[in-house]
Structures are given as structure tokens and as C-alpha cells.
């Protein structure tokens, strides 16, 4: 008897038998192809602008990936593909399946523009979103923001891969997002700076907090296994420390597990993490891991997370989540 299979079945029971919160009304199914009456005017305007993309109905899978590189175009293609019906949505899912880090963004965008997650094909998208670490790291970051003063100034180091910039801004934080690509988001509490997230062009001691979701642990192709903190990561942490006020908090999520590197990520293990955080006052050191192929669980004991290797595709299956003070 395969106990891993039994565990997967048990987890499916957990979700199927209503042990999680029921689906909110906003996520209930809508009639196929029907635009909800509550679509914001801005979304409708963008949808109109994006009508040129209606060819996505037949060819979305082929050109969706290039579009992904520009988030504003992603938004438009999503809208267009939604209008195109189930075939278009299949294209979104196809892209989502291949781009794990953006899956959660896609899911949220789809929900944000009012499409039912239970529409044809969308369960596939939801399943895809469950496989990536953002399913646990993003809620964890939001949970930790209770540590920050109301209206705190927050540097979001890297703001393209998720909607955290808008979520934090909506919660009243003064958010400065730094990334090498324009995210195209507007909010009275959000300001975008085009620069390297690892070297934010901000005054020393100006931020209450720095948040970096999966900002560390990125590596160059073919790098060797992590034995010591990567130089680039240490340099980035130093830069973030500089812009923090005394006592300011850094919130980090870092790929963790049995030390190894893939083409674009390296996994930190406990000794490497210890070395990376030297000099910081660590307030919280927590871990989550992918217990089965599709479900992340939190909290996970550090030794268990440390034994978790990346999956066959090189995606981390455990993550370290750190709150540390300057």
C-alpha cells in the first residue's frame, strides 16, 4: 500500500468534505460567456481596447507567453480571452500551467474581473495555482503586516509577480514598488520605481519595512549547490537594511529545502539561512512545504522542510518565511 497515495486521498477529503471555508458568493458560477453587471468601467474600457486581441480565441496558446512579459498586456489578454469564452480560457490555463509563479496572479485577476472560478476549465487553473509557493507565501506576508504600524512605508522589492502592491496599498500602507519592469498598477498609496529590486534608489533609513517575496534565492543557470549565502543575496539584504529605519522589519520568503540549485533557483538549507540572516534580529522563522503535489501546508517543522528537495521540474517544494529586524 502506498502511504503517500493514502495521504493525498486524505488531503482531498479535507477539501472535498467542506472542511475549508465555503466558496464566497463573489466566486459563485456565472452563466457562461456573460459579463457580470459589476464589471468596473475601467475593465470594460480596457476590454474594448483589447478587442484587437480577439484572435486569441484560436491562437492564444501560441502568443500568450510573450504577452506574459508585460503585465498590462496580460491583463488585457485575460479580458479578451475571457470574452472569447472557453477556448480563450483554455489558453490562459495553458499559460498558467507553464508559468508557476504567475499562476496565482492569473487566478486573482480572473476572479477580480468577475469570471466564475467554476466556469469551464477554471478548476484546472485553480489546481495549477495550488502548486506554486505563492499560494502560501502571499497570505503569510499579509498575515505578518499586523506587525507594521498603520500606514507604514513599505518597500516591495519586486512587484511584478503578484498583486501584493495593490493589496498592501489597499490596506493603507504607503507602498513603493521597485522592479525592472513597469507593472502598470495605479493606486493612491502606490508608487512605482523602475530599478533593480536588489538596489532600490531610496534614501537610507526611510522605510518601515521591506518585503521581498521570492526575491532571494534566484541564481544563474548552472550555479553550484548553495554552501554559503549567495553574494547577490547578501548584497540585496545589505541594500534593504540600508533603506530600513532602525528597528524596521524585513519580510522574506526564500526557497528552502535540501540544498540544490536549478536553472533559475537555489534552495537554501538551514546553515545557509543562518549565515544569510547573521546580523539581523530574527523574530519569526517559519516554513511551509508542499505535502503532496498540489497542497502546501503551514507551518512545517524546519527539519522536515530542510529535507524536502525541489520537484522534478526544479520548483522548490518548501519555503522559508522570515521576519527580521534591523
Amino acid at each position, binding site marked *: *500500500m502506498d*502511504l503517500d497515495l*493514502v495521504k493525498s486521498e486524505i488531503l482531498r477529503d479535507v477539501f472535498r468534505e*467542506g472542511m475549508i471555508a465555503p466558496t464566497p458568493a463573489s466566486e459563485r458560477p456565472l452563466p457562461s460567456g456573460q459579463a457580470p453587471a459589476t464589471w468596473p468601467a475601467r475593465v470594460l474600457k480596457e476590454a474594448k481596447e483589447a478587442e484587437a486581441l480577439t484572435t486569441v480565441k484560436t491562437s492564444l496558446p501560441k502568443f500568450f507567453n510573450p504577452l506574459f512579459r508585460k503585465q498590462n498586456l496580460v491583463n488585457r489578454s485575460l479580458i479578451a480571452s475571457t470574452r472569447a469564452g472557453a477556448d480563450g480560457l483554455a489558453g490562459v490555463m495553458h499559460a498558467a500551467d507553464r508559468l508557476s509563479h504567475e499562476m496565482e496572479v492569473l487566478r486573482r485577476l480572473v476572479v477580480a474581473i468577475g469570471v466564475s472560478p467554476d466556469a469551464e476549465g477554471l478548476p484546472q487553473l485553480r489546481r495549477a495555482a495550488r502548486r506554486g509557493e505563492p499560494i502560501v507565501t502571499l497570505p503569510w506576508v499579509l498575515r505578518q503586516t499586523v506587525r507594521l504600524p498603520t500606514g507604514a512605508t513599505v518597500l516591495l522589492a519586486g512587484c511584478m509577480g503578484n498583486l501584493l502592491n495593490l493589496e498592501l496599498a489597499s490596506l493603507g500602507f504607503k507602498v513603493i514598488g521597485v522592479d525592472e519592469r513597469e507593472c502598470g498598477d495605479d493606486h493612491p498609496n502606490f508608487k512605482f520605481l523602475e530599478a533593480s529590486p536588489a538596489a532600490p534608489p531610496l534614501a537610507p533609513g526611510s522605510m518601515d519595512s521591506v518585503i521581498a517575496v521570492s526575491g532571494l534565492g534566484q541564481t544563474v543557470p548552472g550555479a553550484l549547490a548553495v554552501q554559503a549565502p549567495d553574494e547577490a543575496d547578501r548584497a540585496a539584504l545589505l541594500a534593504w537594511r540600508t533603506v530600513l529605519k532602525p528597528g524596521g522589519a524585513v519580510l522574506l520568503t526564500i526557497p528552502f529545502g535540501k540544498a540544490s540549485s536549478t536553472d533559475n533557483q537555489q534552495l537554501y538549507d538551514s546553515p545557509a539561512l543562518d549565515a544569510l540572516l547573521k546580523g539581523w534580529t530574527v523574530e519569526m522563522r517559519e516554513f511551509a512545504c508542499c*505535502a503532496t503535489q498540489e497542497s502546501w501546508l503551514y*507551518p*512545517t517543522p524546519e527539519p*522536515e522542510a530542510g529535507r524536502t528537495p525541489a520537484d522534478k521540474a526544479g520548483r522548490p517544494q518548501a519555503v522559508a518565511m522570515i521576519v527580521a529586524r534591523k
Partner: protein
Amino acid sequence: MARFVMVTSSLAPGDALGNDIRQMAWLLQADGHEVKYAARANLVPNLEVWSLTDCPKRLASKDILIYNHSLALPDGLALFRQHRGPRALRYHNITPAELLRPYNAELAQGCVLGREETLALLAAQPSAVWATSAYTAQELQNAGAKVSAVFQFHAIDDLHQVPPDAVLAASLADGRKNILTVGRIVPNKAPHRLIEALGFMKAQGRPLPRLHIVGKVTPGLENYAESLGARAAELGVAGDVKIHRDVSLSGLRALYENCQLFAIASDHEGFCVPLVEAMSFGLPVVALAAAAVPETVGDAGILWPTPDPRVWAATFARVLRDDALATELGERGRRRFAEKFTLEKTATVFRAAVQALLSTSMS
């Protein structure tokens, strides 16, 4: 033949520390050695035990010290440092202080001091270092120690030899399923998580098993033990949670034989003897994959990396309704016990460790 002196903070019948020490002593005696005990407190009747203050006067320089380290013991540390003969450091693990601090700051501070003493004991260059598991061995190795043996004795043979408590056994055989957990009722062993899972089962309208929590309450942590009953009442499962604070060996056997599942959600275990007891009785095991638990259970139980009560509730429900799974887990447990944890196998490891220690003393 040599004379061994077992040094420990306390000797009590029935706990993991006491059982480990007594089994080591009996094996040494069986091999013709003389064994003496030195402890700050002794609860074992009819056993001659030196006080730690008297011990230096009674110790001969060629005596072999087996120092059982489980908490801060300044007198013991001084003794260990002063003794010129061979000294084995037997590390039984110390609970991380942060797990106790919310309930008793003084006990937590004791753990901090205990861990500091671990470093001091290692700095005194023991002739041998013995750990209870690879997990505790790693802890010592992280402090720079070379661990020469890993083993943990138990008193499972005694448990299998006493007759089961017939009254308790009859009360368990009323058609309802029973879940068992065994261990001191302390926050680091976290039996409250099992109550949370039971609460979830009730909320979901699943068939509700009884939960039997077996263990003594550590003085100073009565507030934690009391919180268990209060939480069970909040969740509406007070009548389904039975706390056995003083169960006899016969009673324990009745529980192992008549419960359908053994669960443990500890944050910290240096080995976890009750898991091995459960496996020896073929009881299906569900456990939190923390500290030494994964290496003790191996592939013989369902291990979760999370204490999420929803997951545990679903696991309990599955094991209790799936006879094939329960049988498979039970067989795996029995097999693992026979392959890894019988007294004979542990004795072999211990005798080799003693032999190495004796060689050191002769050289």
C-alpha cells in the same frame, strides 16, 4: 570487571529516563559489572542511591561514570568535571525552552540552563557520547561532539508481560473507536492538537471516537493540563476526551490492546518510546513529523508535516473506517519494532558502546 556509576537528576519507575537507566544497569550487571546509582532524587523503592553530594567521597578514580543528562544539574556537572576516570555522556535531550515559556518561565529557564550545561559537559571532553536518536546526535554534533553510539532502551517487554486491566479493557470494547496518545501532559507534546482534531470531527458530524490522553502532569505545568479540559469543553467534546494521569502498566496494556489508533503531535521528541510501544502492539500510528519522530516511525505510520487539525481529523476518520489501511499500518509497526527496536537489538548497540568505553579506560 568494572564498576559503573549511573549519575542522573532523578530516578523514577516507568518514565523513559528511568527505564533507559535501569535497562543499561541490568545489562551491565548481567555482564558481570557492578553498578551504583547517584541521583538528586529517587522514587524507586528498595534501590540504594548515593546523593550527589556524597558521590565524590564514594567514587574511585577508576570507576566509570555514565552521566545521564536531561536537565540542568550543577552538582552533577561539577562531579563530571572532577572525575578522573572514564566518563560517558548519555544525552537524553532537553526540551527547547520556547515551547514551555508561555506556561512556566521558570521551567523554560531550566531548559536554557540545561542546554548550556550540555555545552559545558561536552567541553569537559567525555570519553564517549551516547545519544538517543540520530536527531539528538545531530544536536550534539552541531555543538562539535563526536557521538559514539545511538540507542534508546524501553520497558516494552514488561508491558507485554503484565495482564491487561480487565475492567478498563471491557470499558473500551463498547463498539466506539478509541484513539490513544501517551506521554507527559506538557505543551511540547501538544495533546491539545488531538483535541482540536476531535473537535473538527464533531463539527463535521463524523462518527466520534474517544481520545485517551495518558500521562503524568509535570509540576508547574498544571495550567496547561487544565487548559486541555477547558478546550475540550469549548469544542463540545469534553465527554469524549479521557485523561488518564496515573495509569498502571496493566491499564496501559489494556489501552494499547483496545484502542484502534495511536496519535502523537509533539513538537519535540528525542526518541518517543510510546511510538515504539504502539508499534509493538500493532497499533496504527499517526504522528507529526517533528524532531526524532520520523526516524522512529520510519515508513510504519502516517506522518504529517503540519499539525493542522483538519488534516488530522480527516486522517483519524480514514484510519478508523479503513480496515485494510489500519491492518497494513499495524503490520508495518510490528515489523519495524521487530527489525529495529527489540531489547536484543538495542542491547547489542549498547554492549558495543560499553566495550569501546572499556577499551578507552584500559588505554
